């Protein structure tokens, strides 16, 4: 049998080739290079499925492919900077998700970009290709530095695609903001990468010599690390490293306080939003934490911070989603909120729940964005929900798939989102009873449930129900197969994806073997030692004291039922309130009754203003740094060269071109030599 792992580089390179082709020859190709992108992502999808099947067959892959630099480290070991591949259950699953969503987004783009007569399509498809390739490279990365490089590439592509309509005013500024805000987080990430390399002499994710394994050995006294600054305790230093890397995660996964770029990123074309939110950019942050969870599991403080930030972001973003008028804005805040849930799950130590939600969210959020894209096509690019209404009858495919996605987002039984969100809240709860920060995260996560359900269904009702509130909504533009196809695929997934991990059902009814995802991530099918759910659980129990707490003496089944009932009940309450307020023929703006609170929410708690204000306050520091850079650093370099230049332009004048002068100089030189010899030889004494 041919080895599937030999083709893993092709998964990354195929979209990259589509990028090159679209860039070089896109304008000569039909549809601006779209078919190249579709073929490439379809090929990547098939290869990913093959890899997934191979991993399911019990194989894993963790190899360095190329060492591009090596140097002596601080300790005895040499530091090697490498590119390599790590294929284990987690990355194989992620490969399938990313390639599938990328493929559907490419197909959808045919309807959203080509059929709408957009210009600059080769640039668009080139961007999509590079975006997909970077994310795939990030997913298969076997070390932190490689992951960082592709992380940055993902950021670059988001900049290029968000600013696709660069002739308008909004997109370039949104693109700049996305780039700068995520760069701010990545700065900490870079420092973290260097710290990891300096501390452990390696940045490998998995295997015996990997940095999580070394950290574990060092903490348990079985080994030592190469470098710890300033006599810090190991645990403290590892926490600092964890928090530094977390900086990049907070930026990319749009967690508070670096979430501000994401709503602005809605300026990009809608398929790009779907790609950013579901499978690529924003998912990268959460995936990174999951990837190096073996390290985070050693530092309970970092985990608690992750959980609290996640829970807070979930609630915080959900409240802002309630008052937004534009379809994509609501979805943007829901994305921030949902990634908050994933962070909460990771912080609660539930690696499986986070991956589960990452997967279900990828499907239903891609679905919702593509659905929103269909509505936007139909409404001739008017995104204001108050101009919509009554689209239910006019675009049934979009309506039903969008409804499936909304039910999943709101967490209604038995749609995908219910299973994953319920598992997150349950895990956060049972672990949170020991840890106040975690419990705080759980409370906020729970409070966000009804809010999520409310804004989701406010959006659905305003868009699809009631009477049409504008001419556009009365006569929407029809959409074609290339829009409906992806919607249908994702709609089905949003309904059934939750069935891959029915842990509550297994526990309640005692049916064994229906928690496929848990088994999958637990290396039951095969994987790499030390990178599995149970290995992480051991670490968590050892270092963090994470253990499911007994709740008031209730049995596990009852706790499960109560937790699931609570989150489902709250979600239903949210839906019902939205139903009551907005499912009428001509709804009114109920949020206006909130008065001042609405203004605060509508303006995103004035956080953008705060950031701008901070930027102005720190202008002097930035100016000082610039002066230092331009004056001192560059000054030294420029000074050296200008001294050499000036000296050269003086000295070159002795080259007169006259042969007699050269002869004279030779003679003078000979004389000087004679005199020098004479003086040192003592002739003239």
């Amino acid at each position, binding site marked *: 049998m041919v080895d599937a792992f030999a083709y893993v580089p092709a998964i990354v390179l195929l979209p990259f080739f589509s990028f090159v082709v679209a860039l070089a020859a896109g304008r000569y190709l039909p549809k601006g290079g779209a078919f190249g992108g579709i073929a490439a992502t379809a090929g990547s999808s098939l290869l990913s499925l093959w890899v997934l099947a191979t991993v399911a067959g019990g194989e894993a892959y963790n190899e360095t492919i190329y060492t591009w630099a090596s140097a002596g480290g601080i300790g005895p070991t040499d530091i090697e900077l490498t590119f390599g591949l790590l294929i284990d259950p987690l990355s194989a699953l992620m490969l399938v998700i990313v390639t599938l969503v990328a493929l559907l987004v490419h197909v959808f783009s045919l309807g959203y970009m080509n059929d709408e007569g957009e210009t600059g399509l080769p640039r668009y498809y080139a961007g999509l290709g590079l975006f997909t390739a970077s994310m795939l490279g990030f997913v298969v990365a076997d070390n932190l530095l490689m992951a960082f490089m592709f992380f940055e590439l993902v950021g670059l592509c988001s900049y290029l695609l968000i600013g696709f309509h660069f002739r308008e005013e909004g997109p370039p500024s949104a693109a700049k903001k996305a780039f700068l805000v995520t760069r701010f987080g990545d700065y900490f990430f870079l420092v973290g990468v260097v710290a990891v390399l300096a501390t452990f002499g390696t940045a490998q994710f998995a295997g015996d010599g990997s940095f999580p394994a070394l950290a574990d050995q060092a903490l348990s006294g079985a080994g030592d690390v190469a470098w710890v600054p300033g006599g810090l305790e190991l645990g403290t230093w590892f926490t600092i490293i964890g928090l530094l890397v977390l900086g990049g995660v907070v930026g990319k996964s749009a967690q508070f306080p670096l979430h501000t770029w994401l709503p602005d990123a809605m300026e990009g074309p809608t398929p790009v939003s779907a790609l950013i939110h579901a499978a690529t950019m924003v998912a990268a942050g959460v995936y990174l934490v999951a990837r190096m969870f073996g390290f985070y599991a050693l530092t309970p403080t970092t985990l608690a911070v992750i959980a609290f930030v996640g829970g807070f972001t979930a609630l915080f973003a959900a409240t802002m989603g309630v008052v937004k008028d534009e379809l994509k804005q609501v979805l943007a805040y829901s994305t921030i909120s949902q990634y908050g849930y994933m962070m909460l799950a990771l912080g609660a130590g539930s690696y499986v729940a986070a991956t589960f939600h990452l997967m279900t969210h990828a499907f239903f959020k891609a679905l919702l964005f593509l659905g929103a894209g269909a509505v936007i096509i139909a409404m001739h690019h008017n995104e204001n929900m108050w101009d919509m209404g009554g689209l239910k009858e006019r675009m049934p495919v979009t309506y039903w798939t969008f409804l499936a996605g909304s039910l999943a987002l709101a967490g209604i039984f038995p749609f995908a989102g219910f299973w994953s969100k319920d598992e997150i809240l349950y895990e956060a709860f049972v672990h949170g009873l020991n840890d106040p920060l975690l419990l705080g995260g759980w409370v906020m996560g729970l409070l966000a449930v009804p809010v999520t359900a409310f804004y989701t269904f406010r959006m659905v009702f305003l868009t699809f129900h009631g009477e049409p509130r504008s001419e556009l909504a009365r006569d929407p533009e029809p959409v074609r197969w290339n829009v409906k196809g992806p919607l249908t695929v994702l709609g089905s997934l949003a309904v059934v994806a939750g069935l891959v991990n029915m842990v509550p059902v297994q526990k309640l009814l005692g049916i064994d073997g229906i928690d496929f995802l848990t088994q999958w991530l637990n290396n039951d099918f095969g994987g790499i030692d030390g990178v599995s759910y149970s290995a992480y659980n051991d670490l968590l129990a050892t270092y963090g004291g994470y253990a499911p707490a007994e709740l008031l003496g209730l049995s596990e089944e009852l706790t499960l039922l109560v937790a699931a009932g609570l989150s489902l009940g709250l979600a239903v309450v949210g839906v019902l309130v939205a139903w009551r307020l907005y499912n009428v023929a001509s709804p009114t703006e109920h949020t206006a009754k909130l008065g001042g609170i609405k203004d605060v929410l509508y303006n995103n708690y004035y956080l953008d203003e705060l950031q701008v204000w901070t930027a102005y306050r720190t202008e002097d520091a930035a100016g000082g740094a610039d002066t230092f850079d331009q004056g001192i650093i560059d000054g030294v370099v420029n000074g050296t060269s200008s001294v050499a230049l000036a000296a050269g332009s003086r000295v070159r004048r002795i*080259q007169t071109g*006259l*042969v*007699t002068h050269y002869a*004279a100089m030779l003679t003078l030189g000979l004389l000087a030599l004679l005199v020098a010899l004479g003086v040192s030889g003592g002739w003239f004494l």
Partner: protein
Amino acid sequence: MVPPEWYLLLAAGVFCIGLFGVLTRRDALYFLMSVELMMNAANINFVAFALYYGDLTGQVFALFVIALAAAEVAIGIGIILVLYRNFGDTDVTVPTEMRW
């Protein structure tokens, strides 16, 4: 036997005449002749020392220098010909293209 100082003085004189020619003459042919004089000054020294020490190496070296001078003249004349062809003159102060 003539003392070696005389030979050395003769050689120094011939060398200085050659050097003077190189520094003051503008015609390339005089240049070549002056260089020839400087070389022969060196030859005189070689032979003089060979005689003084009773060692034939210096004389052999002088023969080599004479052979080398023949080659040098061939190349030198060639250069002068090209100089004349390009500038219509054998004045070495005319071509100053190879300057800063």
